[in-house]
C-alpha cells in the first residue's frame, strides 16, 4: 500500500507546485496549505501512524 499512497501524494504535490509562483491570493493560499497537507499527511501516515500501530495496534485480522 505504501508506494501507491506515496506516488499519489507525490503526484498531488506536482499538481500544486505550479501554483507557487501565482500572484492570486486564492492560489497562493491554496499552494501553502496543500504543501502543508501533503507533507504533514505523508509524514503522519508513513512515520507516526506506523510507530503508533507498532506500539498499540490490534493483532486480530478483520
Amino acid at each position, binding site marked *: 500500500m505504501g*508506494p501507491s499512497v506515496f506516488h499519489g501524494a507525490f503526484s498531488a504535490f506536482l499538481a500544486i507546485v505550479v501554483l507557487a509562483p501565482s500572484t492570486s491570493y486564492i492560489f497562493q493560499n491554496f499552494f501553502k496549505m496543500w504543501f502543508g497537507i501533503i507533507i504533514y499527511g505523508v509524514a503522519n501516515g508513513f512515520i507516526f501512524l506506523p510507530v503508533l*500501530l507498532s*506500539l498499540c495496534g490490534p493483532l486480530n485480522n478483520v
Partner: protein
Amino acid sequence: MNLVAVYCVFFMGSCSPIHFRSAAAGITLLCVGLSYASSFGLAQYLGGKMAGIHGVLPFLLIGIGVDDMFVISSAIDQTNPRHSTVERMRKGMMHAGSSITITTFTNAMAFFFGCTSSLDALASFCFFSGLGVLMLYFTSITIFTAFMVWDIKRQVNKKGDCCGGCFCKEDSILCCKGSCLTPRQKAYPFQGNQDDELPTEGEYINGTQKFLHQKLSKATTSTWGTIIILLIWILYLGVSIYGCMNLEIDFKTTYFISETSAIRTYVDKSDEYFKAGDIISFYVENNELEISSEENQNKLVDFMDKLESCDRCSQNWIKEKSLSSWFSGFQAFAKSLNKVRPKRNNGMNPCYKAWDDKKEVVVADKFYKCLNTYLDTQGQQDKSKIKFNEEETKITAFKMEARSVYVKSAAKEGVQLLSDINRITNTYGLGETYSFSQRYLDYETYVVFEQEAILNVALALGAVFFILIIFTANLTVTLLVLLQVALVDVFLFSLLYFWGVTLNSVTIVNITVAIGLSVDYSAHIGHAFLTIDPPTTHIDGSPTSKREQRIFKARGAIG
C-alpha cells in the same frame, strides 16, 4: 497538469515496454477530467453556485483521483502473475477496492457535512467537491478498472505499451537494461519459462517499495527510532500549539485583487498613510412613517445623537462630527430663516415661523414647504439623499452617512462594530433602519465564522470517525487514524501562522480539504495494517514481533 501526467506515465508501471503504462496514465487523467466535468454539471444542475475558490477544484480531484488509481494499479501488480486475468482482478480489487471505498466515503461524508455550513462559499465548495469525489470513485472502479483488465491482457501477451513498445526492447539501454524490473516482473508470463519458480512475496516489487520496506520500516520500528519519532512529534506538537494560539483571523476583500493592480495599491497606501475608516450609510425606509411629526423629529435627533456618541459601544466607532445628515442641515436652515419676514414685493419665505423654539422642532405644517426651499437653495447636495413618494408630499426613505474609525482587524473589531451599530439602529432607528459600508462585507463573514469553523472541523472529524468505524470495525485503528487527521489539522493551523497566512473563509475551505486528504494517506496504511496476514516466514532483517511485521508489510509491500 503536464507534470502530473509525466509522473504518472513513469511511475504507474515500470521501465520496460511491457510494464510501461502510458496509456493507463492517460486513462487516469481522463477519468479525473470526466469526473470533474460530470460532478460540475451535476452540481450546477442541482443548483450549486460557483465562487472564486472553485478554481482549485481540479487540483483537489487530481490529488485524490491519481491516488486512488495508483492504489488500484499497484494492487493488481502485486497479485500472482500466473493466475488468470479474472483471478488477478478479483484479488487486486479485493484489496484496492475496499481501501478506495473507505477513503471515498470518508472524504465524501466530510465534504457533505461541510455543506451544512452557513458560510455559503464553503458550503458550495464542499458540495462540489463531495460530488467530485463520488464521481472519481465511479470512474475509477468502472472506466479505469476496465482499462486495467485490457492492460493486463496486453502485458500477458507481451505486447508493448503503445508508445514504449515501438522502439525498444525489454533489455535495451532506453529501458535501463531491464535493471529496474523486479524478479516478479521478469518471471513468466512476461519472460522466462513456465516451469521457473515464482519469486516469493519477499522479492520487492520496485524501488520505492524497497526503500519503504527496508529502510524506513526498520528505522521506525526499532526502539530508538520509535523514541526519536515520538519525541520529534511531541516537540513539534508543542510548537504547533504555540502557532495555533497566535493564529489571526483576518480577511479583506482586497486579497482577491491582484497585488500589482491600482486598486490594491490605493487601498494599501490609504491604510498605511491615512488609516481612513470607511463611510457607513444609514438607510431609513418606511412608507407609513411621517417624519414631519414632532415625535418622529425628536426620535430622529435622538437617533443621530446616539450614533454620534456611539451609545454603549465597546469603542467609539464613529469619527467625531463625521455624521452628515440632511436633517441637521435642514434644522439649521429653518432656524436661521425662522424670523425673516417675507418681503412684500419680493416673493415669500416658506420657512417663516417654521421653527418651534421651545420644542426645538420644525413645525409640522410648514415642514415640507420649508424643506423644499432648503433643497432648492442651501441643501442641494442633500437632494439625492431623500426619496419622496410619487406625489412628492411625503418622505418615504432617506439616508445619512458617517465615517467610521479605522478598523484594523475585520474579525475582531469589525464584528464588534457591526454588532454595536446594529444594536443602535435596531433600538433607536425609525421605521426600517439599516446600515451598510464596503467593509461590512468583510465583517459580516466573521460574525458566525469562529463557531462555524469549529463546528465544521468537528463535523468532518465526526464523519471520518463514523465511516472508519463502520469499514474497519476496529476502534483502535479508527482512533489512531483520527488522531493523525487531527494532528495534520493542528500542524496545518500552525503552518499558517508561521507562513504569515491568516485564518479566513478561504483557508477554512482548505482545512476541510486537509481532513479529506490526510484521511486518504492514513486510512490506506491503517487499512492495510488490518487486512495483512502476519507473515509466517521470516524476511531477512525484519523485526520479530507480530505487530511490527504487519507494519513492515503494510507500508512496504502488499496492500
